């Protein structure tokens, strides 16, 4: 019997329980980033809203609200939970542009900015990307299975599929 663990906006959840499925529902411009150690079977899912933490000393940057600080904190939590830095792989989904008709205003391109921030910090942390489905104009629900590190997405009108 699987346990569904919702990961709300701005949250980070880390688990070692193979019965857990970490779920971020209805991602629009938000980004769902998953980290997994396949040997220790430690999984973490981040549900980030905005790309960049404005003040690294601020308490708000200790949560999962921002892509950059959130991913760094989730990595720390994974290591504390027993993951090995060298084995960790990453999968991510989301970052859609839900307002395709407002394409002219960069301030409204939050999804694209979240993706760029993720790519930058992934490169900086030298994380291996095992799969991703980002961008587009549709919402996605992400399911991240702790037992085997599979990440699946579901979009309106479509079946769940692995990325």
């Amino acid at each position, binding site marked *: 019997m699987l346990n569904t663990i919702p990961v709300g*906006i701005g949250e980070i959840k880390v688990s070692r329980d193979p019965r857990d499925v970490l779920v971020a529902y209805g*991602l*629009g411009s938000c980004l769902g980033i998953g980290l997994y150690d396949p040997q220790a079977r430690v999984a973490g899912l981040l549900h980030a*809203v905005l790309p960049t933490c404005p003040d690294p000393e601020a308490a*708000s940057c200790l949560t999962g609200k*921002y892509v950059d600080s959130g991913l760094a904190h989730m990595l720390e939590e994974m290591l504390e939970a027993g993951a090995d830095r060298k084995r960790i792989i990453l999968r991510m989904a989301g970052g859609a542009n839900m307002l395709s008709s407002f394409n002219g205003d960069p301030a409204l391109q939050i999804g694209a900015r979240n993706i760029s921030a993720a790519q930058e910090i992934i490169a900086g942390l030298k994380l291996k990307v095992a799969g991703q489905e980002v961008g587009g104009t549709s*919402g996605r*629900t992400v399911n991240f299975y702790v037992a085997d590190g599979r990440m699946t997405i579901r979009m309106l009108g479509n079946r769940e599929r692995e990325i």
Partner: protein
Amino acid sequence: MYTGIDQKQQTRLFQIAHDGIKKAAAGLEDMVGQEVRFSAPLLRQVPLFSFRNLLGWPEAEMAAVYLRADGDLAGQFMLITSTEDAQRVVDRLLELPPGTTTSLGRLERSALAEMGNLALAYFLNAAAEGYGMETRPTPPAVIVDMAGAVLDLLLMGWDGVSDQVMLLQSKFNLEPQFTCLFLPARSVVEGI
């Protein structure tokens, strides 16, 4: 969205929103040709982590009209309902027999956009006439997707710091109901 707000600001914001929604309902009555009831706006502080559950299940398919406004009453506005209810409203807007609309294509979305445009225009006119607030709306966008993904749009105006999202929530009863959400910009709340 600014969440630090004192009683005086709350009262003022409520008055502006109430007058705006009342006028918007009157405008919608002209559009659909029958009485449109509305609920008094409720000022809410919604925890960020559960924001996408604001209207229930975050994967529920919803149709929304989204608009932004710049100026004295800057902020974000959204009229949102289930896709099925949006289709029923389209029947009314296009004067079609009930049950005719079964999908939201270009024509149907255009009708919804016009409804949102009109409602916001009346809302902003009330603010201008009653409070001297000059505001410029953007063209409406119609989005059909999971509730959580649609509500993500409103987080574009989030201040990035607070753990709560402040908004005003009301309902228009067009048989069916639309939820109306207004998220004022921080500058608006601080200036009230």
